[in-house]
């Protein structure tokens, strides 16, 4: 039985302080806020080390800066979703720290899916198995409102898989940080089918990957989705940064990448090649118009 106070409205959200109560409530269209306490930490090694199946959320959730450590999703029959949202409601998920997520699925892996707005989410972890494409931030092309992800970071080790690894698809990302270490041969996509990708840092280490695509102008069921990258920083270690395989290319504005850590890269106006040394040189970056200051 769920342990909570409040009525679940915007003015009087459910206040919870344990995961089981949260799981019980979050499938409804309601407002949930995690409690203000001295110890905002749940270590799942102590309460459920075997992990959970995927859950579907409908709630508007303020995690209130709680930390969730060693949360596992083991699902041999379904996708592994962490913040899976049923959509259809202008909801927000914000202010959560997930440390050492462990995701293992026979199908898709999603960190966030169909959520209208994620803000101030951080996640680190390991994707040990995926039976289909990995997409950390996944929107759906059928929704009117694409997911927006602001001020969030996602740092993952991804074990070799034959399926592509995507940071964000059908989503707007801004002020985010994605770090992926991937030793497999599949492709890695930073952003695709996106409306905007701004001020985001990507550190992708994928030495064996067939290629890393920075911004992909993709085809969806409702037409083409114009990916754009503005003021982004790409630190990519791979063989090739591949050309968008479609006719319509993504647009870049004032984004930089380190050209000396890849063997080849397509050229695009607004995508500025820099050496590793130049990327660490504030005066150089200022001289090419990149907005940066020294600390």
């Amino acid at each position, binding site marked *: 039985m769920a342990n909570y106070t409040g009525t679940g409205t915007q003015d009087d959200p459910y206040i919870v302080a344990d995961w089981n109560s949260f799981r019980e409530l979050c499938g409804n269209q309601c407002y949930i806020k995690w409690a203000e306490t001295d110890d905002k930490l749940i270590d799942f090694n102590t309460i459920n080390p075997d992990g959970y199946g995927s859950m579907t959320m409908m709630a508007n959730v303020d995690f209130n800066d709680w930390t969730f450590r060693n949360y596992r999703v083991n699902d041999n029959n379904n996708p592994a979703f962490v913040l899976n949202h049923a959509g259809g409601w202008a909801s927000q998920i914000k202010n959560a*720290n997930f440390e050492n997520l462990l995701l293992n699925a026979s199908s898709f892996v999603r960190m966030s899916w169909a959520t209208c707005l994620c*803000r*101030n989410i*951080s996640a*680190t972890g390991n994707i040990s198995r995926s039976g289909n494409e990995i997409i950390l931030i996944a929107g759906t092309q059928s929704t009117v409102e694409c997911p*927006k992800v*602001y*001020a*969030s*970071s996602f*740092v993952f080790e991804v074990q070799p898989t034959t399926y592509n690894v995507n940071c964000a698809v059908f989503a*707007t990302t*801004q*002020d*985010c*940080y994605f*770090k992926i270490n991937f030793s497999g041969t599949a492709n890695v996509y930073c952003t695709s089918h996106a*409306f*905007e990708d*701004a*001020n985001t*840092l990507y*550190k992708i280490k994928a030495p064996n990957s067939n290629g890393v695509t920075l911004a992909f102008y993709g085809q969806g069921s409702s037409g083409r989705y114009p990916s754009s990258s*503005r*003021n982004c*920083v790409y*630190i990519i270690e791979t063989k090739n940064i591949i050309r968008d395989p479609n006719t319509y290319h993504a647009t870049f504005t*004032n984004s*930089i990448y380190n050209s000396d850590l890849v063997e080849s890269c397509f050229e695009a106006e607004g995508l500025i090649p820099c050496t590793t040394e130049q*990327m*660490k040189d*504030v005066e150089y*970056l*200022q*001289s*090419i*118009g*990149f*907005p*940066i*200051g*020294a*600390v």
Partner: protein
Amino acid sequence: MSWIIYKGEPFQTEAAEVQEKPFVKPFPMALFRMDDDEIVNGYSPVKDTRAIMYPYPLSYWRQSKYINEGYPFHEMYRILNTAGAFQDVSTLVKVSIPQSVKKIGEFAFAGTALKKVRIAVDCEYFPTSFPEGCVVEFYGQEV
């Protein structure tokens, strides 16, 4: 690009949600603004380096040799914000660290002007806790 408070809510002045009302002069140099339907800021391109001084908006790119391996970073996202308590306080020339302190963070005093510190023998610290060239002495073992 920067966070502002708009109608009582945090709001960003970039991407698909550019609003006209929050753009009221005078702008900070770092703030992006509309100019002939283009989003620009005072640094594009940089003509006056005095513009690039603290305080930066949290979303403004910055560089420190101690953070993100020296690559650009900003302070909107959570994970890389590993700055030490006194990091880059360039005016800090002297500090008294009592013997009761048993651990000093990875970049706690990096980038300060400290030339010499004294800590407890059993105090844990990192090679990057103090600025380069800073002499670390221990209580009871002063030279």
